[in-house]
């Protein structure tokens, strides 16, 4: 079977999961897979920047604006999430451009870029907390239920399976965007910029334009992910959808999977979510904090021992073997 066939079978299997009779656990399994789809999509969006050395520690800001704008527009004005999410994405892109323009003009790179974006993330989180009359402050805000109007117009569904397919579609869309960027001139230009900005500029690459473009794209996708995450759980909280904690979590998952390969972010996200869910169920409420403790420890160990990520290391090893295979003597 060729690669294409293998992936088609895998995708078909994933698409058929909601049809399986999984008994009492089925709602929960769908829930976990939906989380994996949506967070993988966000991780993918982050990797669009991260792979070119634009290591953002503030994607929580984009996530937060996307989620809160969508939820608040629905709660206060009854605006359909279709329009709400579109406005949220526009706002986020605007925010991203306001940050990215000076960053690339003044050559804020490396550690400095990370810390500037971290500050942006904190600003958004603190603004959400400070505007508590609107946003519910640190307690978060619940999405007003649509009641009888639930359906495609309000994007609220009684059946979890709808979000399963929405999540899957969005995830595939994210992979497609990643793939398009990977095949484009943008990739070559951005890699050149990541290596050496001055050299890239000297061969005629418009640095600011490319950096702002990729940042806007990444921010737009992240905002969409934030909007969908908030709509799906019908709740937004400044700590889970904005700020330094969630920003770091996104980066972790991506780096854990490997940010230079198509499926790296998804593999990393799936593993971190699976791990934290497993630990949460295993320990329950017996030892509060132990799941997160093991999670943190695992992250440190992975970063020390598998620096190019799980998926990155696996595919790297597989490629080396494939390359070395034919020339190897049969006796070995």
């Amino acid at each position, binding site marked *: 079977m060729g690669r294409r066939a293998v992936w088609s079978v895998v995708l078909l299997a994933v698409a058929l999961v909601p049809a399986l009779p999984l008994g009492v656990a089925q709602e929960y399994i769908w829930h976990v897979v939906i989380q994996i789809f949506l967070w993988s999509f966000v991780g993918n969006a982050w990797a669009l920047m991260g792979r070119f050395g634009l290591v953002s520690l503030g994607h929580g800001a984009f996530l937060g604006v996307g989620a809160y704008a969508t939820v608040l527009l629905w709660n206060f004005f009854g605006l359909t999430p279709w329009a709400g999410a579109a406005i949220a994405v526009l706002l986020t892109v605007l925010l991203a451009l306001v940050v990215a323009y000076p960053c690339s003009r003044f050559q804020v790179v490396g550690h400095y870029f990370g810390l500037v974006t971290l500050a942006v993330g904190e600003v958004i989180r603190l603004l959400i907390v400070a505007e508590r009359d609107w946003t519910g402050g640190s307690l978060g805000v619940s999405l007003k239920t649509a009641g009888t109007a639930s359906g495609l117009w309000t994007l609220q569904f009684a059946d979890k399976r709808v979000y399963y397919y929405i999540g899957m579609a969005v995830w595939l869309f994210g992979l497609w965007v990643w793939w398009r960027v990977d095949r484009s001139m943008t990739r070559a230009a951005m890699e050149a910029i990541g290596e050496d900005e001055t050299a890239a500029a000297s061969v005629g690459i418009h640095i600011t334009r490319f950096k702002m473009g990729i940042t806007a794209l990444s921010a737009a996708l992240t905002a969409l992910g934030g909007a969908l995450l908030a709509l799906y759980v019908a709740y937004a909280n400044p700590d889970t959808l904005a700020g330094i904690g969630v920003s770091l979590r996104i980066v972790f998952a991506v780096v854990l999977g490997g940010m230079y390969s198509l499926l790296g972010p998804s593999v990393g996200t799936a593993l971190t979510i699976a791990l934290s869910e497993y630990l949460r169920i295993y320990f329950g409420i017996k030892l509060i*904090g132990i799941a997160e403790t093991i999670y943190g420890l695992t992250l440190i160990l992975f970063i020390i021992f598998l620096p190019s990520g799980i998926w990155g290391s696996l595919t790297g090893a597989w490629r080396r073997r494939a390359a070395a295979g034919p020339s190897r003597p049969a006796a070995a």
Partner: protein
Amino acid sequence: MIEPIFLLEAVINGILLGGVLALLALGLNLIFGVIDIVWIAYVDLVALCMYGVYFLVTLYGFPLWLAGIASIGLGALLGLAVHQLIITPILASPPINQLLATGGLLFFIQSFATLLWSTDHRSVRVTLPTIELGGIFISFTRLIAFVLAILAMIALYFFLTRTFTGTAIRAVSQDREAIALMGARPQRLYLVTSAVGGAMAGVAGALLIMQYAVHPYFGGAFGPLTFMICVLGGLGNMVGAFFAAFIMAQVISLGGVLVSTEMGYVIAFVIFIVLIFVRPGGIFARRA
């Protein structure tokens, strides 16, 4: 309109806060300047030292000053442990992995503290009188913390300028290849730096527990602010960090009085972002 007397009080409180922030920033900046790695979990180490002081005082009946000294030792040990266990294996890794390894430590410390000590807020009650100076109220506890922080920074200054090891540490931060050629061992200097940086965290922990209650997520409150101060002063630039700490403390203190506590932080972060664009190498960087 806010009466001037309140503004003056906010300014003085800002100065007192600045002393402790400067101490935090100097410890982190020392490590960054020498080892070239940002310890994202630095303020979480401070929180661990605060727990140390808390338990020594409440559980074992130590006097506060003795617990404070023990906290310095604890901080130094934590610094050594972090360097040996986490930093040494990833010294050659790409910067993002280094950042994330200490970020993993942040998750680890926060959740481990939750596991061991729950999310309760714990404080060492220090009941000292408030000083009144012409209608301005100043907390004596804060004043003591400020003075001790300044003393700790002076001690650090003398260590870095007057001792052989200190001079060698400054030399590493200037040129890590050249120092090896001069016959000093960077690895040993890294260890010393981590211990000293950790000890500064210990001092900061002892001073902070006098004013604030410690809880597992304490690092989240001061961590981002500490990075901002380091960057604003110029990563690795000790003098810059010192002054940047006082600027940020003023913004937060005045913003807190004039608008609200959160907005004080928002304004501080926005000022940080704008200043980074204007002066990417920190506010005190010399123009290249």
